[in-house]
């Protein structure tokens, strides 16, 4: 049972940390809410319904990029453990691996995945599709609008 002591201590500590940091912000900050402050828009008009939450796609994008680069590091740990035994072979292999990741990163940067400012250079795509009233109207079904 003694071998699980570390895990238990870790569990207690992490719970304590979460509780303390949550409680501190709760009690230490001064809070004087008013109805106007809690309204979604402070423009004087009472909102008719809950505003639609907006999730910028960029958040997803950054999260996805993070997952990939985060998980690539998994390979670095076992490699680092036996780095000296591997010698030059290991170094070269890891450089090749890193190169592959860097190419992917270069692609992301060139596609503007990491640009957070206002969209400066949106690529213009020459669409061969002719847009007519018929096609555009059909793209917005009336039933969906009404709902």
């Amino acid at each position: 049972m003694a071998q699980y002591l570390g895990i238990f201590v870790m569990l207690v500590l992490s719970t304590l940390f979460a509780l303390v940091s949550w409680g501190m912000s709760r009690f230490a900050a001064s809070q004087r809410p008013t109805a106007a402050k809690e309204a979604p828009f402070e423009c004087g008009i009472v909102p008719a319904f809950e505003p639609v939450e907006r999730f910028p796609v960029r958040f997803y994008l950054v999260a996805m990029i993070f997952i990939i680069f985060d998980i690539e590091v998994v390979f670095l740990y076992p490699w680092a453990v036996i780095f000296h035994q591997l010698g030059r072979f290991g170094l070269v292999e890891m450089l090749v691996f890193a190169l592959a990741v860097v190419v992917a990163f270069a692609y992301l940067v060139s596609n503007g995945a990491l640009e957070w400012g206002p969209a400066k250079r949106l690529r213009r795509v020459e669409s061969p599709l002719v847009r007519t009233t018929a096609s555009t109207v059909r793209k917005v079904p009336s039933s969906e609008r009404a709902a």
Partner: protein
Amino acid sequence: MTPLLSLLVAQVPALRLPQVDYFALLPEIVMAGMAFVTLGARSLTRRGLPPAVWTLVTMATGLASGTLAVLLGRRVETHGAFAAVDGALAVDGFSVLFLVLVSAAVVLFALAAHPWIEREGEDGAELLSLGMLSASGAMFMAAANDLLVIFLGLEILSIALYVLAALNRRRAASGEAAIKYFVLGAFSSAIFLYGIALTYGATGSTNLARIGTYLAANVSTHGGLLLAGLALLLVGLGFKVAAVPFHTWTPDVYQGSPSPVTGFMAAVAKAGGFAALVRILFAAMPTLRLDWQPVLYALAVLSLVVGAILAVVQRDVKRMLAYSSISHAGFILVGVVAASAAGAASVGYYLLTYTFLIMGSFAVVTVVGGPADAHQDLEDYRGLARRQPLLALGFAILLVAQAGVPFTTGFLAKFYVLTAVIAQGGYVLAVIAMLAAVAVAFFYLRLVLVMYGWAGAGAGAGAGAVGPVGDADAAGAGEVVLPAGTTSLAGVGAGGGGEPDLAVLGGGGGLALATATSTGVEQAISGEGLVAAPEGLAAGDGDPVPFPDATKVVLALCVAFTVVFGIWPAPVVDFARHATLLFGLR
């Protein structure tokens, strides 16, 4: 934590570096490396290069890796098969055959995709580098001698294909196809992986050669575990090659994906899946043959029957080709069921010829489809022979070859598969396969007739009936073209038209239907001259179809391969046979 760490640390003193034979890996390295180079170059050029550059680079990559594979084949011939990279890769005639096949598919894909890229204004570098990456995955699958390497190859192949399927961003169907492919693909990958884990637990290794020796030497004490692992492996690969109980994703994904991608998917995913299947079953688990043979037998019969019946009742050409690819998968499974060297050779030969047939066919579908791949209906092919005679002629040859008409590679492929299974005493399976081939030939011939405006009546019945897929047009075709076959065809339509995905037909019933259909088709063929209506009877022409140069090249290559090696089969057949003489490492 501590025991795991100590286990890791205990291994450290015994560390030995694997002998990496880079020459043996070169085809895969070139393919994957050029995918990264393409992506890097695309990222670094600000303005973007013309699409032709990427097409040429991809073609050069395919040619280079194919040449390297042939050189590797020379070395295998002189020195014999060997295992590379500490037993993780098998270098033998079988893997060389598939390396060449995948390289050829990459060249054809670059050519077939070029007109599509220019038409849709998509990013050629993205499409082609993903294609090369996916191809490298298939190459790893074919050369793998370790279940984990097979899994990694499978994932490289599939993940790139998911993105390729979604690549047409302006078409909602493309995204829908991608998500369907993704969910079912991830599901099947997980099942396959669980099969690997159980096999590993039962035999103590993921290396195919070591599993083989273990199973040959020991009477397994973990029989259930091993069989469960084997079953899960079969299910996982069954999804990938679209064998029948696991085929439901195929029509939707084939229809929704961009047309050139569909062709590539059909050729390469099938090649990778069958290469892995044959290698796992023949190299690692020949001792379990009595366990896996009946399962594959059932899969083969179901794929043949269901594929043939449902192909006939489709109206969308891409869906028809999807069901016909299921029927092809059934044929290839017949070769696997043979479980002999000849069987493995026939599987390789079938896949090689199928690659050219299907890539050429989808190159035509790409061109006829028009912007956003919109024109896929049978009606859009009406009178194609008048609008683009050469295009129609090439397509007709490829379709007829897929039907298995003599003097084409398609016929020889079916022939070798059947001789392989008959040599093992599988007469019943051979008969079922032949009947299914006749049934599915109806669909190919119908498409050819529509293109040439002959038997315009047959498809003309469908012109008015825009109704849902199924009974109407099958019955209509029966009425006009083949009076005697009417009832049988209508029966087929009723059986399969309503819910194609759920239609599970009993073996006996399916066989009866197939027989009925076959008689109808024979009459259709014999009566062709009588029914042939003068051209121009059919409705007005569709849109003019362009015929870009790249499509001309790819069509010429595919037709030349199909016809030349159909009449003079020796080189390709020898190549395929050579592949299996060296097959097996143990």
